[in-house]
């Protein structure tokens, strides 16, 4: 039998004062956890270090669509579809595969071939992406003209390198440091890199990244999801802006 002021775990008799104290501690513990849980849940979606505007939730339910158009393989697989009522100029749609992968492209497919692709359409702001689950094959259709590249000159732009897929709505959040490893993984897998600018360039806040030669960039893991300043030529292709950057000049802020 333990004395009333001495707690022994295996003895049920621990005294009233001790019991009252423990009841108080337990109530405090429960209130503390509920309170902090409530507080922590009030964090809005991460916005990255430039406090970029958080991406709005997808503005339409994600539906499967079939698009026909001209495929450009460089810098990253992009589909250009004929202008329509909503898109007065040649409309670009970035292509990606399922999960953290680029689209699966038939090796025989030539740059500029006409294709028909079915996939889930993601849309965020001015940028569209089609998630294509199947391999992309050529069509016998007559080709539509390639978008004539228009140079907008050399620019110095601040922003964050994101993967085109999460940024267009596959994940929430799709930006910020806590998403950095995930974005790097998408970029390794071949998802097109999108530069989200801190201030708009020629009316656009999303630029497709490319190397100075207009080809895909090598490893972007060091710079993904950080506030960076990039320099290079910006080129308009249809309604898509391509930012041809030299990563050796990149500066982390």
């Amino acid at each position, binding site marked *: 039998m333990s004395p009333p002021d001495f707690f022994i775990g295996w003895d049920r008799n621990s005294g009233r004062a001790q019991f009252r104290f423990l009841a108080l501690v337990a109530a405090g513990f429960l209130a503390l956890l509920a309170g902090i849980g409530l507080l922590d849940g009030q964090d809005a979606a991460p916005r990255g*270090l*430039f406090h970029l505007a958080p991406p709005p939730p997808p503005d339409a339910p994600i539906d499967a669509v079939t698009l026909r158009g001209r495929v450009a393989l460089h810098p990253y697989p992009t589909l250009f579809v004929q202008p329509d009522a909503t898109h007065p100029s040649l409309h670009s749609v970035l292509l990606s595969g399922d999960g953290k992968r680029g689209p699966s492209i038939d090796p025989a497919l030539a740059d500029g071939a006409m294709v028909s692709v079915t996939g889930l359409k993601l849309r965020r702001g001015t940028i569209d992406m089609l998630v294509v689950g199947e391999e992309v094959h050529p069509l016998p259709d007559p080709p539509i003209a390639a978008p004539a590249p228009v140079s907008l*000159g*050399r620019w110095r732009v*601040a922003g964050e390198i994101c993967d085109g897929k999460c940024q267009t709505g596959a994940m929430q959040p799709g930006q910020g440091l806590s998403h950095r490893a995930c974005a790097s993984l998408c970029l390794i897998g071949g998802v097109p890199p999108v530069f989200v*600018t801190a201030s708009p360039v020629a009316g656009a806040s999303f630029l497709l990244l490319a190397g100075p030669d207009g080809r895909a960039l090598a490893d972007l893991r060091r710079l993904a999801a950080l*506030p960076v300043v990039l320099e290079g030529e910006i080129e308009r292709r249809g309604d898509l802006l391509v930012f041809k950057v030299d990563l050796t000049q990149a500066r982390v802020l």
Partner: protein
Amino acid sequence: MTAHLLVLAVEAYLGVGLVLALVFVFALIDRIDPQAHGAHAFRPLLLPGLTLLWPLVLVRTLAKLRGMTDPLASQRANLAAHRMAWLGLAVLIPVALVLAWSLKAPTEAPQSIRIGDAP
């Protein structure tokens, strides 16, 4: 590639550990700890620890099988380590927090500017 080799090495380590753990709970534990005699329900609980720490388990098992007696209870080394740990944390934690605050201070984003014509 290196990453994959590392994952394979960890899997191999754990594989060896699991085999030794099974040998330990079935064949050795009764010779090492009298409180394990006739007690079986607790043994599965030991498997993760035996698997994870198998080199240490091996060393302790050999010492026990050779009948080495344990040294007298002493807490002085641990108390000193405890003190050092908290003095270390008392430096590390404020430094880490100050670093975190300074890194997350909103960065003034320079305006996008056109710096020249295309080459």
